[in-house]
């Protein structure tokens, strides 16, 4: 096995936070994210990691496989939040679904929850941009998509997220007043 066990353990320890966080933000579920992240590392171990020439290459591989496995997991789930996508509008009640989170949550926690309601493609791009701090062209390379598509998804994702956040925050302010 070209990937020594001790090397593999170091790799898991070094990258588990990135892989798990990525899986968590894409799937929106802790248990599913854990499973996805484990599968990604097992895939790495079984592949032997022979073709990974550098730390950057390994990070790239881990991110790409995590996104793919996480979106696969999303698609397998029956209750995909995809329907909430672009059809969502301010008239929709913020007291349903994710927006019904306890009012004690911080703005950041609310944003994180709202993220799960974004359509898959937008969510993935937003997570890669703001969690992994990747530029649109890096995201495009990772996802194998044109840069314009990535930028478009990013723009629309941000707009949608911001509109939802505005409604939820208004509700929050009303509750506190």
């Amino acid at each position, binding site marked *: *096995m070209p990937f*020594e*066990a*001790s*090397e*593999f*353990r*170091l*790799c*898991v*320890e*070094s990258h*588990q*936070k*990135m*892989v*798990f*966080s990525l899986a*968590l933000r894409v799937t929106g579920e802790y248990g599913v994210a*854990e499973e996805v*992240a*484990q599968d990604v*590392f*097992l895939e790495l*171990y079984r592949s032997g*990691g022979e073709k*990974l*020439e*550098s*730390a*950057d*290459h*390994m990070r790239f591989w881990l991110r790409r496989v995590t996104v793919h496995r996480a979106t696969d997991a999303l698609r397998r789930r029956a209750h995909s939040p995809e329907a909430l996508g672009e059809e969502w509008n301010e008239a929709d009640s913020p007291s349903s679904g994710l927006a019904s989170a306890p009012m004690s949550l911080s*703005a*950041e*926690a609310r*944003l*994180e929850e709202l*993220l799960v309601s974004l359509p898959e493609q937008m969510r993935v791009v*937003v*997570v890669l941009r*703001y*969690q992994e*701090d990747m530029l*649109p062209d890096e995201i495009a390379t990772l996802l194998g998509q044109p840069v314009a598509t990535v*930028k478009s998804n*990013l*723009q629309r994702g*941000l*707009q949608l*997220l*911001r*509109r939802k*956040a*505005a409604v939820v*925050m208004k509700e*929050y*302010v009303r509750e*506190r*007043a």
Partner: protein
Amino acid sequence: VNGPNDMFESENFESKEFASDEFESKDAGAEAFERSLKDALRRVDAPPDFTLQVLKKAGGAAAQLVETPTETQAVWKLERPKARASFAWMHVRWWAGGALAAVLAIGVFAGEHIRREREREVANQQFEAATQIENQALEHAREQLREAGVQGIE
């Protein structure tokens, strides 16, 4: 109270296109929103037993590592140009660290041994001095008794 809302609302943001060069030019509300988003999307820790679970599932040699103590705790970050080279370098550092720890342990042990030897030597000297003083005092008492004519003191 208005604070949290400001960053989520902006007329400019709604109409702004992220087309090519304009990607980085956004209004203040959009920037504040993105900062909040960045804060919200900080990486989170994996479950505590994540590594062990992965190693167990990997089976074979990796699973055997579950029984051995962890070499590192996220200290060895794989941030170097060549991951494979960095693995080798990590092993070198591991052995160097082990050797250094062994030398330190020997040094501490030797230091402790020397300290105890010195204490023993000082205690011996004090004991000998005390014995000598005692003998002198005894001899002096005998001398006085002899001078006083007391018999049978030897």
